[in-house]
């Protein structure tokens, strides 16, 4: 529907921002009518409601609505039909290939690119949410010189006569450069300005890993783990399924070894040694809590145990329990030479990484479970430290900051922002107005990666061309463009820069664009040798007495760059279920010694600096250690992120980026209210998430069934039969699910799910259609964690349907529990009567305060729900309908299995969610449901859910039982 009336109105709403008008006119007038569609979809629902029974009368004065067709056609654009482009998303040193769905020129949804080795069709929460940042109304909207609004032309003029010399005192500062075309410009710039230097800094970097490699091999390398080949995995402070690695591909590989279809199938075993409770820890078969500062020692001891290193005092510092654990692990590893793997996390010091390498070589894992490619040995922290010193010494005249946010996230001891004031000219290219922009003399709007040309090299070297789906909304430019501008690079526009970097024939280029991968580059694989003597010569880090503090990227805002992203802020932390906040995570025992409970404020001091932050007790966290998630407490930030959470960077110094010793931690007056999406953590012994072990399964294949118990189920009535046509159903493998938030974000993007904000989450009104239920099991001190994605179960005997007085929710012949928003009057009875509590009610008009710009992200295939109506998961019925219509048009009778992917399924890195036709015995889902692990939650209620779960299987080491 193209409803012009409201189109004009929403333009009116926006007309206060000239950029918007400019953007509207310049970019895509043709589909102006389309995008308002969604704005109007909302308004419409409201109007319908407002116009009451008087709908009739209203129509007497029927509003004139306009249709705005294109003036000139656009190739392969059919109004209303989506187009998909491949591109890539970069985060630190990693990049992930994507497919982006666009509707009439508006990117609306991000999927993983199945051909891309780093994403394999999956997309992380960050990647998916990045689309919201594109439409962030708080983005830098224009070039500014000081306070004055300026223009690119003006800056061009300025640059022309400012950058004449040989670059004396000229410094470039950017995030890690993983873009080949930017590298080209970088090199050119450094030739053009011989005395200039280019610093790369990421708050979350691979520095220690590189240092470790240099220590072990004498050269920097990148490690590539082949988890699908590993039978026994030992992860030390390494959340390779979560935040400490390009986790999508690793998750896929790991999960492939966790889905046991038959009792005889071989399952891998994961040992995790960690401080904070991570997704990896949750997935582990054995988890050992250990302070981060002790893990290098653990590895050394392991080396000793495996006779790689001579006996050393290390062992003495391990407790008996730890030692028992270590011995068992050592035995298990040794028993799986060439099929085992040891990973050390980025927070761990070089020596730990070195030991890990040494052990992997000893265990014959080189070339089998771990491969290496060459890497350059730049240390980012050192680079920025030098820069800071130069700034302090006044030797930096011009600093060109391309992206990043050093004023906020540079190591505290460098005192970056105050030293920045010593620089004569600070030129800053930034996506949003942040702490750094505030200190810049020239502020340049950066182009979002979805609106500009670029290219990125993934962790394993695969290169993807980034192509724009819209022209820059606020006239932003890329880092390459700015660097080119300053250094007079022969190519000035992003497209030319990239196109020229790759050259090649048009056909190959087009193919590269289409596939999202460029063939030309080859990454050299290296076969390094460890030098044990050097490792042995390196002292282990001193043990921290007192409480240690550990810094880690946050699952929602990473290093702070996503602070203004409402989806991510509202996405609950997978482990703590905390939204819109960070907290000092500590073990119950630590809390007891400090005399604090969750919500109490702590004053933490380290290296002469201090922060205030509320404590949160996390069962399973290592004692005597406090985890501080980075990225919160932004002072200069958009409306969403400003003042959310607590900034922990002040404690993070350049020589202790991973963890440090706290000089003092004490409770101070005051408390903080967290907004949690899950407040109860125990399963109360109910058969909700069923768990079994490989052993049990081998003994008795029916083990799972026995746990649920049998129930005599009957109905008063003759129940309808669902044996015709498609019968949709879903199976979720809890053994594969790692609890990452990918599905939750996918659902949010696909189904126009609103953001409700911290206060409303606290009231229990979050709108996510799919919950990731997280349960702790076992003791408070040593709990294990299980996850359960919980969305509408599409019950055949749906209790919600029975109680709706106006029949707003009823059953489709294909077994879907339909929800007709436009019929709903909002009694909330259905939600009350839902045993899974998966229905969501629009308590308020969540879309009211939404900037029209953000409405561009709305999926036009899904109604935007007005306040006062109920909503819930519907297996992405819009996708089902599209597919059916497509099949009909192609006059196909049956749909192919896997032709329809629900949003959550499509993006799940573990492929834990499988949707399909239960009526087709050969469909993947039917097969899964036939497995002995398959069970229905609350089956005894006879609601006959169409979604069922495959019990979680762990593979514990009998020796540790």
């Amino acid at each position, binding site marked *: 529907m193209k409803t012009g009336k409201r189109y004009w109105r929403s333009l009116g709403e926006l007309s206060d921002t000239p950029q918007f008008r400019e953007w509207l006119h310049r970019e895509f007038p043709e589909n102006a009518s389309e995008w308002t569609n969604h704005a109007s979809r909302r308004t419409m629902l409201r109007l319908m409601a407002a116009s009451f029974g008087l709908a*009739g009368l209203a129509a007497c004065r029927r509003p004139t609505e306009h*249709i705005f067709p294109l003036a000139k056609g656009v190739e392969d654009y059919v109004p209303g039909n989506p187009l998909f482009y491949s591109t890539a998303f970069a985060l630190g040193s990693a990049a992930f290939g994507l497919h982006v769905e666009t509707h009439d020129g508006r990117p609306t949804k991000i999927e993983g690119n199945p051909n891309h080795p780093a994403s394999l069709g999956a997309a992380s929460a960050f990647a998916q949410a990045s689309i919201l940042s594109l439409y962030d109304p708080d983005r830098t909207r224009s070039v500014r010189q000081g306070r004055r609004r300026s223009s690119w032309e003006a800056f061009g003029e300025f640059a022309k006569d400012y950058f004449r010399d040989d670059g004396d005192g000229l410094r470039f500062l950017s995030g890690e450069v993983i873009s080949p075309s930017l590298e080209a410009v970088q090199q050119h710039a450094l030739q053009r300005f011989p005395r200039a230097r280019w610093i790369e800094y990421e708050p979350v970097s691979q520095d220690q890993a590189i240092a470790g490699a240099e220590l072990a091999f004498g050269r920097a390398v990148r490690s590539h783990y082949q988890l699908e080949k590993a039978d026994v995995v030992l992860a030390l402070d390494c959340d390779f399924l979560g935040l400490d690695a390009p986790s999508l591909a690793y998750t896929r590989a790991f999960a492939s070894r966790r889905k046991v279809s038959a009792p005889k199938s071989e399952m891998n075993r994961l040992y995790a040694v960690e401080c904070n409770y991570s997704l990896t820890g949750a997935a582990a078969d054995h988890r050992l809590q250990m302070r981060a500062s002790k893990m290098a020692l653990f590895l050394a001891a392991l080396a000793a145990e495996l006779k790689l290193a001579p006996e050393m005092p290390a062992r003495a510092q391990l407790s008996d329990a730890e030692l028992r654990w270590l011995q068992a692990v050592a035995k298990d590893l040794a028993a799986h030479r060439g099929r085992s793997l040891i990973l050390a996390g980025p927070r761990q010091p070089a020596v730990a990484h070195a030991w890990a390498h040494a052990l992997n070589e000893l265990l014959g894992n080189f070339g089998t479970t771990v491969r290496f490619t060459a890497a350059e040995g730049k240390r980012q922290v050192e680079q920025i430290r030098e820069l800071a010193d130069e700034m302090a010494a006044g030797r930096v005249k011009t600093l060109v900051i391309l992206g990043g946010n050093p004023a906020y996230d540079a190591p505290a001891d460098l005192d970056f922002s105050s030293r920045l004031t010593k620089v004569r000219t600070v030129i800053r290219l930034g996506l949003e107005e942040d702490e750094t922009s505030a200190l810049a003399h020239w502020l340049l709007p950066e182009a979002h990666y979805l609106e500009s040309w670029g290219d990125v090299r993934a962790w394993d070297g695969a290169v993807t061309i980034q192509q724009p789906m819209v022209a820059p909304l606020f006239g932003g430019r890329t880092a390459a463009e700015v660097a080119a501008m300053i250094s007079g690079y022969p190519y000035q526009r992003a497209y030319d820069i990239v196109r020229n970097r790759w050259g090649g024939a048009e056909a190959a280029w087009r193919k590269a664009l289409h596939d999202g991968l460029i063939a030309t580059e080859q990454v050299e694989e290296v076969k390094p040798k460890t030098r044990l003597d050097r490792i042995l010569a390196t002292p282990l880090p001193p043990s921290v007495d007192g409480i240690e503090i550990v810094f880690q990227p946050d699952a929602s805002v990473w290093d702070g760059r996503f602070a203004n992203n409402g989806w991510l802020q509202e996405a609950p932390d997978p482990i703590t279920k905390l939204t819109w906040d960070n907290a000092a995570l500590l073990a119950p025992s630590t809390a007891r010694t400090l005399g604090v409970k969750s919500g109490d404020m702590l004053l933490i001091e380290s290296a002469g600096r201090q922060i205030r932050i509320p404590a949160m007790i996390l069962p399973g966290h290592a004692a005597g250690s406090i985890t501080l998630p980075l990225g919160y407490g932004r002072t200069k930030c958009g409306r969403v992120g400003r003042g959310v959470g607590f900034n922990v960077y002040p404690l993070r110094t350049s020589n202790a980026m991973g963890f440090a010793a706290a000089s003092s931690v004490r409770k101070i007056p005051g408390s903080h209210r967290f907004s949690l999406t899950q407040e109860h953590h125990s399963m109360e012994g109910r058969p909700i998430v069923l768990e079994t072990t490989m052993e049990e399964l081998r003994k008795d294949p029916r083990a799972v069934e026995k746990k649920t118990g049998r129930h005599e189920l009957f109905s008063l009535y003759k129940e309808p039969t669902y044996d015709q046509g498609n019968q949709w159903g879903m199976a979720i493998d809890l053994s594969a699910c790692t609890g990452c938030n990918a599905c939750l974000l996918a659902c949010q993007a696909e189904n126009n799910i609103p953001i409700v904000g911290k206060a409303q989450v606290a009231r229990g009104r979050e709108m996510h259609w799919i919950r990731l239920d997280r349960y702790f099991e076992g003791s408070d001190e040593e709990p294990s964690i299980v996850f359960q994605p919980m969305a509408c179960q599409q019950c055949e005997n749906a209790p919600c349907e029975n109680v709706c007085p106006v029949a707003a929710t009823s059953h489709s012949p294909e077994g879907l529990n339909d929800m007709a928003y436009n019929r709903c009057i909002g009694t909330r009875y259905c939600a009350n009567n839902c045993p899974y509590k998966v229905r969501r009610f629009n308590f308020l008009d969540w879309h009211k305060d939404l900037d029209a710009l953000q409405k561009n992200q709305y999926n036009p295939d899904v109604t935007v729900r007005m306040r006062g109506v109920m909503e819930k998961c519907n297996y992405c019925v819009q996708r089902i309908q599209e597919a059916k219509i497509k099949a009909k048009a192609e006059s196909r009778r049956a749909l192919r299995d896997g032709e329809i992917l629900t949003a959550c399924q499509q993006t799940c890195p573990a492929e834990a969610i499988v949707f399909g036709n239960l009526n087709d015995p050969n469909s993947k889902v039917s097969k899964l449901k036939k497995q002995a692990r398959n069970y229905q939650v609350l089956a005894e209620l006879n609601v006959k859910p169409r979604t069922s779960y495959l019990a979680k299987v762990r593979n514990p080491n009998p020796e540790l039982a």
Partner: protein
Amino acid sequence: MGAIFPKSANGVVRLAAGALLLAAGASIGLYAYFSQPRVLDTGYTPVQPVPYSHKLHAGNLGMDCRYCHFTVERAAYAAIPPTEVCMNCHVRVKPQSAQLQLVRESYARGEPVAWVKVHRLPDYVYFNHQAHVSAGVSCVSCHGRVDQMLEVKQVQPLSMAWCLECHRNPAPHLRPVELVTKLDWKPDRDPTQIGREIMEAKHIAPPVNCSGCHR
């Protein structure tokens, strides 16, 4: 003392009561009738910025609907044609016509012509042209004899009840796909029979559940 009310009071009261009942009944009846989309929405004939005559183009000149509404078989929307399409002919045909002024301007400036929407569905209704056309539902079923309209006019209520009529019993409205745009098609035999055969052949079973149209 005497009675409070005059003798006539009894008659008056009875009369009043009768009148009241009548009025109530009448108003309900009237509302029930006039609130029908059939009564309200049909016949809506807005004035278009450009006096484009479907009668001339589709009728007299016999142009196929799909020449302009070319996405109808591929998309949910039967797109209103880009100005470009008009100009394909009108660079030569009547290049100077005053009536085409707007069109020429639009083409020159690259800005759209603000056509007025005639057939409107609520935003929570997902009607898909592709699905219907490929099944063999003719344009005429919903839009009427556009080829006879000087100004396009809504001839059907486009209400849910009306949609359901056809979704429950599609046979009378089906025809061979190639004849979909032949608005004046007269079947040589019982159309319902033809419809049944098509349903048979194409396994047509229109949805009557909510998510068929509401998502």
